[in-house]
């Protein structure tokens, strides 16, 4: 317990000190994206890593959050601080309703159904151009503002995004090691045994699906208000796959792993700049290699190596 808290405090401290080490608006901007992707990866991980339910449509919830926020603040001039929770409620409510029929499906079928859902969202973003601006996007979305501070510079955005990301992380870490988190993992391992012990598996899965969508919506709203411009290409099928890759690389059921996966996949294209065309090949290769050789993900793989050499007693907790 103490150790977990210490780890999180240390991690937060490192994150908050990052602007001291990485200067320049380009780097700050990349780190802002790492934060947004970390939130999204954690959202998907709660569903996939803990409850064991796959989604290939999470980019859709991310996009929906961004568009609800974007349209409310531009077309209807609503305050962003009002638009964000409204978006979260809309997206969460929608996910809750879709959750009942969709989570009846298992495995491959759930994957295909969520994929279809994501594509329907994507097509809707493109086609309802009176609202969304269609393929050319929605621009001049207002920045967030607290008192006199407008979040319009890279450093300010960094603190805004990472403040929320750390809160989401803590939220997820707490959830993972709690009554509800255990029930989720129980459903994952043996749905029937969990039910016999009184866990309402169906409702729990739908709840976590909705929660996951709400986190995506929050990330989407923040994305819209920091970038001030959104277009459908950021919310397509490929991005859902990218999120899946982040979660798998970091490790299913590992919250810090989701950060690691998000960081790697956000930085990789930046490092490979120039070799731009290769990144799609690398994503595919990474997915295949990870599932085959390190199915527990990087964090667990690394800590297994660490134990092998430093020899500690076996670790069993979830972090």
């Amino acid at each position, binding site marked *: 317990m103490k150790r977990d808290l210490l780890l999180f405090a240390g991690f937060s401290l490192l994150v908050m000190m990052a602007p001291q080490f990485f200067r320049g608006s380009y780097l700050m901007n990349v780190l802002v994206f790492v934060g947004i992707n970390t939130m999204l990866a954690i959202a998907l991980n709660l569903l*996939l890593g803990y409850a*064991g339910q*796959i989604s*290939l449509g999470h980019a859709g919830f991310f996009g929906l959050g961004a568009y609800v926020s974007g349209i409310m603040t531009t077309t209807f001039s609503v305050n962003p601080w009002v638009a964000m929770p409204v978006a979260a409620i809309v997206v969460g409510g929608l996910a809750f309703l879709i959750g009942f*029929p*969709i989570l*009846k*499906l*298992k*495995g*491959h*079928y759930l*994957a*295909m*159904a969520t*994929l*279809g*859902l994501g*594509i*329907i969202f994507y*097509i*809707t973003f*493109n*086609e309802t151009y009176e609202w969304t601006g269609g393929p050319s996007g929605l621009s001049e979305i207002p920045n967030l503002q607290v008192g006199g501070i407008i979040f319009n510079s890279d450093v300010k955005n960094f603190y805004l995004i990472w403040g929320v990301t750390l809160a989401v992380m803590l939220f997820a870490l707490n959830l993972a090691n709690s009554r509800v988190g255990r029930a989720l993992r129980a459903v994952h391992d043996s749905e029937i045994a969990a039910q016999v012990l009184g866990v309402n598996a169906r409702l729990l899965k739908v709840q976590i699906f909705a929660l996951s969508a709400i986190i995506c919506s929050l990330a989407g709203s923040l994305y819209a208000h920091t970038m001030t411009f959104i277009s459908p290409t950021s919310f397509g*099928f490929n991005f859902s*796959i990218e999120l*899946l*890759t982040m979660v*798998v690389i970091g490790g*299913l059921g590992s919250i810090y792993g989701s950060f690691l996966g998000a960081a790697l996949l956000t930085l990789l294209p930046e490092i490979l700049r120039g070799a731009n*065309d*290769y990144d*799609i*090949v*690398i*994503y*595919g*290769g*990474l*997915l*295949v290699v990870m*599932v*085959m050789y390190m*199915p527990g993900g990087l964090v667990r793989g690394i800590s297994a190596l660490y134990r092998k050499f430093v020899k500690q007693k076996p670790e069993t907790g979830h972090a």
Partner: protein
Amino acid sequence: MQFDQILQYTLSGLSTGAIYALIGIGFSIIYNATGIINFAQGEFVMLGGLFTLSCLEFLKLPLWAAIPCAIAASTLVGILFERLAIRPLKQPTPINLVIITIGGSILIRGIAMLVWGKDTHSVPPFSGDTPIAIGGATILPQHLWIFAITLIIIFLNKVYFYHTISGKAMRACSYNRRAAGLVGIDVRRMVLFSFIISSAMGAVAGIIIAPLTMTAYDVGVMLGLKGFCAAIIGGMSSGLSTVIGGLILGVLESLGAGLISSGYKDAIAFIILLLILFIRPQGLFGKSNSERV
């Protein structure tokens, strides 16, 4: 006028529907033999078209020789995929299989992009492009090729599954994999066979449609998903129901695009997909309960 239009949309819908059917049968064959939904199925459609192009342009082969070469090359990729990604998997849980077939499909697509570039390529039609009038509508000779080849493939499929030892063994696997193993059927071999057959069928689908729609490294994604949709409508059968599923989907899409809005054309397939999965997961024509719910 209105009737001619509907006839026109229906005819072109039927030809795309035939393609969806071929891809859908590919999905079903692998699913029935292995329980895997192969997310990389669409990539074989893309490979079929692009390999044909390379055979024609780089190897300067005539069309009748280019097509079998392209099918063989795509099938080889299918074999490699099964050997290198599916078979070595240590924990073949549904989620791991989904991830690995998605990973494989991205990898194949990415390599195709490096080989053939991002451009859209055109492939010449098999026998000219003089339109043929049918009632008030017209179709191209390529449409006839599509119908004819689809019929032949479905016939060959039937012969294979019902009149050859290996086809019967494959059907046994689809009923009960363990029992099939116990009576001496080499189940792993059947898994490989299923990948061979469905990658070849995917490639054929890609080859016959390429002259109509052009082809590029990323055409496999949508075609693959539509094919899956056809298979779901047909209840994952590797026979007639999936063919009908494909045709229904093709026609609905074509009518929807023509009469309502072309922008939502792709959404139609996915709305049908979700409705079927929610309401009749056993497919439109199926009656048995199955484990997908």
